[in-house]
């Protein structure tokens, strides 16, 4: 069963439903779970939010009658988010998934007021007894695509369309650059910030600007397939983001980093059903399947596929760490010595660029 609500009707109905919400008295193991999702973009973005919604639908498919899901899309990060999250908690949801970094402080505040509701925040770092944090090691996928870029770029210049300078994005740029320069030590990564997660027109403009400046491969940390579409038209290559965007660039897409949230969502909603849900922090990657690599495109020759697969397998086996030293920063200072690698904690606070990034 699905309830679809828009943010506005939800806010309008807020007062009424708050009054109707029964005070929390829940048994340890529940018969039926109500789960709510908060999305930062539209589910039709074909990127980040779309993939979370696919995960939500996976939960419905897997748990059937035992779950009732709802979602609110297009929720701006900020005061609006707090209202929406509070509303979802007040209207009887047992678990609320907030799927954007910028919802972090709102989730923590609302969680204090609703100790019986479980909250799950994606990509953040603050927890509470009823707030769990889940994240995907996207940088592992970026190490794989960086390897492909290093072997396939002719000009040695890669354009990277970035959204906001938060650790998540910086980490991705760095992982990509490190992997690329292993294959091509003189590679240059030109970063253009569009200061938006989602603006197809601007993403396309950024791609055009980068291609005009000599980039022959485009990578992106924004949500729409617009940049790939430009790459296809201009005869250069690129990588899909969040979902397989092959349809928009059948020749240009070398591969895509695909987010797969379904298994995690099923596991967590099941935990609520079983009464075993606990707050925790997980950071899953290629190994757990939260990050996947889409099928390779026609422009990726056999030896490049083999090399990309080797990097992927190395990360899964734990023999290869994308942030293994030696790593120098932009100024040429040694940040990570040979034989060591950056810890998760250092990664989550990353605010510096590795050598070769032009940003």
């Amino acid at each position, binding site marked *: 069963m699905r309830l679809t609500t*828009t943010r*506005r009707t939800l806010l309008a109905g807020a007062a009424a439903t708050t009054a109707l919400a029964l005070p929390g008295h829940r048994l340890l193991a529940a018969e039926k779970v109500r789960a709510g999702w908060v999305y930062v*973009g*539209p*589910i*039709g*973005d*074909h990127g980040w939010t*779309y993939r979370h919604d696919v995960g939500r639908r996976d939960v419905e498919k897997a748990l059937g009658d035992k779950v009732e899901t709802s979602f609110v899309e*297009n929720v701006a990060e900020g005061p609006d988010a707090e209202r929406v999250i509070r509303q979802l908690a007040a209207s009887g949801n047992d678990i609320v998934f907030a799927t954007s970094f910028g919802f972090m402080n709102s989730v923590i505040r609302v969680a204090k007021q609703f100790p019986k509701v479980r909250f799950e925040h994606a990509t953040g770092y603050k927890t509470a007894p009823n707030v769990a944090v889940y994240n995907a090691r996207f940088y592992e996928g970026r190490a794989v695509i960086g390897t492909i870029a290093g072997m396939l770029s002719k000009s040695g210049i890669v*354009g990277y369309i970035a959204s906001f*300078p938060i650790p998540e994005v910086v980490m991705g740029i760095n992982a990509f650059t490190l992997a690329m320069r292993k294959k091509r030590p003189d590679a240059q990564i*030109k*970063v*253009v*910030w*569009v*200061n*938006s997660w*989602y*603006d*197809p*027109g*601007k*993403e*396309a*403009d*950024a791609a*055009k*600007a*980068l291609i*005009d*400046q000599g*980039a022959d491969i485009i990578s992106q940390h924004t949500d*729409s*397939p*617009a940049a790939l*579409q430009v790459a296809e*038209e201009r005869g250069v290559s690129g990588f899909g983001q969040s979902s397989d965007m092959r*349809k*928009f660039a059948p020749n240009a897409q070398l591969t895509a980093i695909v987010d797969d949230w379904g298994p995690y969502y099923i596991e967590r909603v099941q935990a609520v059903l079983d009464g075993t849900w606990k707050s925790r922090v997980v950071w899953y990657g290629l190994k757990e399947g939260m990050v996947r690599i889409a099928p390779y495109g026609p422009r990726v020759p056999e030896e490049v596929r083999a090399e990309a697969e080797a990097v992927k397998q190395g990360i899964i086996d734990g023999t290869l760490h994308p942030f293994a030293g030696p790593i120098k920063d932009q100024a040429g200072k040694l940040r990570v010595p040979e034989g060591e690698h950056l810890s998760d904690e250092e990664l989550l606070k990353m605010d510096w660029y590795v050598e070769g990034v*032009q940003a």
Partner: protein
Amino acid sequence: MDPITATTVSVISAATPLLLAASGELVTEKAGVLNLGVEGMMLVGAVSGFAVTLTTGSATLGILSAALAGALLSLLFGLLTLTLMANQVATGLALTIFGVGVSSLMGAGFVGTPVARLPRLDIPGLSGIPILGPLLFGHDALVYLSVAAVVLIVWFLSRTRAGMVLRACGENDEAAHALGYPVIAVRYAAVLFGGVMSGLAGAFLSLSYTPMWVENMTAGRGWIALALVVFASWRPWRLLIGAYLFGGVTILQLHAQGLGLFAVPSQVLSMLPYLATILVLALIAAGSGRRRLDAPACLGKPFHPPA
């Protein structure tokens, strides 16, 4: 194409949707009606144009249906504000919210499907001229239409009787009514024209700029178009300059970042288009003889025909 020409071509495509939507809104406002629903009408135009082009395979039909969809939405606005005398600001905002929702609904089945880009109108011989060729020729029909619309609007507003009647309705509705002009009918026509142009601006986005449909793909361009009308102080020529200036600054800041030209944060560069608007507004206001902004005197006010 050399980098400078390529950049200029990008600027043209960034400016075109702004110019289309803003020139429609300019005519609407000249008749005294403030329609804040541009963003919503653009979205509905974008999704209609996309859906029809995809299902029929004809871009011409797609563009026509985008214009029709924009017109239908603006007709709704006209009914509410001109016939039922609803508040224009509130109705316009509601129209945007409605447009966002209804376009998402209409487009739900089309997400994730690409469509062929609008064909470029290549003129044999001319398109091949270096620099001038790609700059002046080889765009798609909507680009030429956007510039032609400005020329036609200038001519219409300043040289035709109908244009003067339209301006009279915007400057002094009661006087226009006293002279026997059908104020409400004129305003309906102006509102419909605004809807058609917004719909075309949307079609340009979903068929040429980024040939795909994704929800909310206008990403605020409707609001920029509204700001441009004020920026242009309701003069079509200034609108042309403003749209290209706006498109230009947007594109140039992306290029500057890629070249590593400025050691300033990218957020400052993203701010530039808006800064430019404020700056020009201040210059106009402080200009010689302190020329007024020239807003139509009856802008946003409902017209009650005296009984």
